[in-house]
């Protein structure tokens, strides 16, 4: 750690040079919220937040780690873990083909990266989910890596930070995916008993089986502005109740007002927010 240079936000543009498929290519990009034409570099240097309207672009797990962790401090765990196809699942494409395509697109083996590192000098176990990998869905690999991250945090007496971005459980592993909800929640139960601190960060989108398991079990739950957070997806709810949903429904601010999110935190404040909570509640 001694040779790590002091972290400033100016470090971020160089660090996010790779693997940013979540965001359109090109020198200029358009903000999907305010339609402003934005110079790509300026959005990058603003942590992928629109400088005009504060729209938070979705970022990959790699970008998230680069944004959150002290530069060069992240040591990944279980990187070699890759999905199997326990059911021989085939829809219009075989599951292995979907896996291969997602791996090629993201350069990752599955939808979560876990590891040890520092946030403003505080050592943590971090898990960052990747929505670009099959919608950030939780199958056996995501469940196993999250469970191991929880256990590592417990063994080493470290705070745990999980940044969620997921459409829910992965259909192609059916029952196996479903049981990852129980597995991760059970692991957090033990962590809780051991007195560990779990900070859950909800980003756009966090829905389904991930919300209904570890994401909602944080000691402190933070959310990025306007992130979609819910159990059922908005389309499913609209089909059920047969009316259009109110503006802002299932957004981070709505969840806060309903009492399920502690704080809505803009991306640029996440590092200081997390480190401050660790100072209050960590060991």
């Amino acid at each position, binding site marked *: 750690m001694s040779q790590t240079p002091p972290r400033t936000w100016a470090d971020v543009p160089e660090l996010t040079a790779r693997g940013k498929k979540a965001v359109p290519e090109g020198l200029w990009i358009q903000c999907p919220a305010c339609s402003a034409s934005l110079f790509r570099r300026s959005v990058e240097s603003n942590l992928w937040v629109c400088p005009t309207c504060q729209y938070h672009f979705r970022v990959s797990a790699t970008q998230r780690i680069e944004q959150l962790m002290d530069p060069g401090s992240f040591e990944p765990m279980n*990187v*070699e*873990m*890759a*999905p*199997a*196809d*326990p*059911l021989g699942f*085939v*829809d*219009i494409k075989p599951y292995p083909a979907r896996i291969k395509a997602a791996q090629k697109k993201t350069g990752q083996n599955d939808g979560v990266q876990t590891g040890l590192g520092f946030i403003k000098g505080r050592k943590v176990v971090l898990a960052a989910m990747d929505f670009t990998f099959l919608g950030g869905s939780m199958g*056996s*690999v995501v*469940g*196993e890596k999250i*469970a191991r991250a929880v256990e590592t945090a417990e063994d080493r007496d470290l705070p745990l930070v999980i940044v969620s971005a997921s459409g829910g*459980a992965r*259909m192609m*592993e*059916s*029952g*196996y*995916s*479903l*049981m*990852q*909800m*129980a*597995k991760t*929640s*059970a692991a*957090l*139960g*033990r962590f*809780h*008993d051991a007195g560990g601190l779990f900070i859950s960060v909800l980003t756009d989108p966090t829905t*389904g*089986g991930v*919300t*209904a*398991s*570890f*994401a*909602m*079990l944080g000691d402190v739950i933070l959310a990025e502005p306007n992130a979609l957070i*819910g*159990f*059922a*997806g908005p389309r*499913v*709810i609209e089909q*059920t*109740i047969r009316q259009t*949903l*109110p503006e802002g*429904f299932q957004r981070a601010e709505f969840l806060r007002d*309903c*009492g*399920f999110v502690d704080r809505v935190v803009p991306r640029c404040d996440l590092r200081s927010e997390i480190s401050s909570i660790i100072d209050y509640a960590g060991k």
Partner: protein
Amino acid sequence: MTKTNGYNYALPFEQPVIDLDRQIETLKDRADANSYAEELAKLSESRDSLLAKLYRDLEPWDVVRVARHPDRPQTSDYISMICRDFRELHGDRHFGDDPAIITGFGRIGPHKVMIVGHEKGRTTAEKVACHFGCAHPEGYRKALLKMKLAEKFRLPIVTFIDTPGAYPGVKAEERGQAEAIAVNLREMSRLKTPIVCVVIGEGGSGGALGLGVGDRVAMLSNSWYSVISPEGCAAILWKEANEETNQAAATALSLTARDNLRHGLIDDVIEEAPGGAHRHRQQVADRIQQWLVDQIRELRRFKGQTLVRLRYEKLRRIGAVARAE
């Protein structure tokens, strides 16, 4: 007593049996029925063997249909069939009482237990009140409250799972559907008392698992349990839910009792006689009772701490991962 012969609702694949049933009824109703005794016996025999054959190799999508049969016994039916002195307990002490989950004290065989189960409702009014078995957050919170009560007095917990999924609606989201289920998963994993679960009909995703973390989990042979309903899966992966894609999705999801057992996701299958639980209510109830009594007897020998450790180890093992090349 509800109609139990399945006549008022025919599953498509059961049609040949229904036709035979009609013939038999017609013959029986004749004034001179006695003179047709031989034919009646033959007809009943072929009806029974046809039913057995149909139910022997049900397609997964047909299993889903049986699991949803309107005459299929529900939690309240099993309670009345296998449980003595049932004392229903209402409410989550915070928001309200969700009729989509029934909770209460009861005696099963020699055991005093806490019973928790999804309820779909039988009449239209009941179905509407129960949201067709889709519980709201207060239902899951009520379940947890009563399960903690059971833990306090070392009563084993019996759960009956039968839900298409947790309710997807505005109020459910506002009251924290995801949080309610998540907390149930975490807390059920560490309740220091035996938990035995039976999927009696539909095991729809997180809404089912919210009552489904246990030491022993069984499925009735014509129930389904999966991460998503076949229709939901078809709509997303096949872009369209129709008869054909629902069928394909049901197969792909490996949602039958046998599939779940094969993959080690459940511990046991409780066999329904050919024709399903809607035809053989008492027999299926007896088998469930026997299974519950056996499991609870075994589990009661363990200390609470041991149960929690074994339960965790069991959950912790579930998963299929490979090494990247």
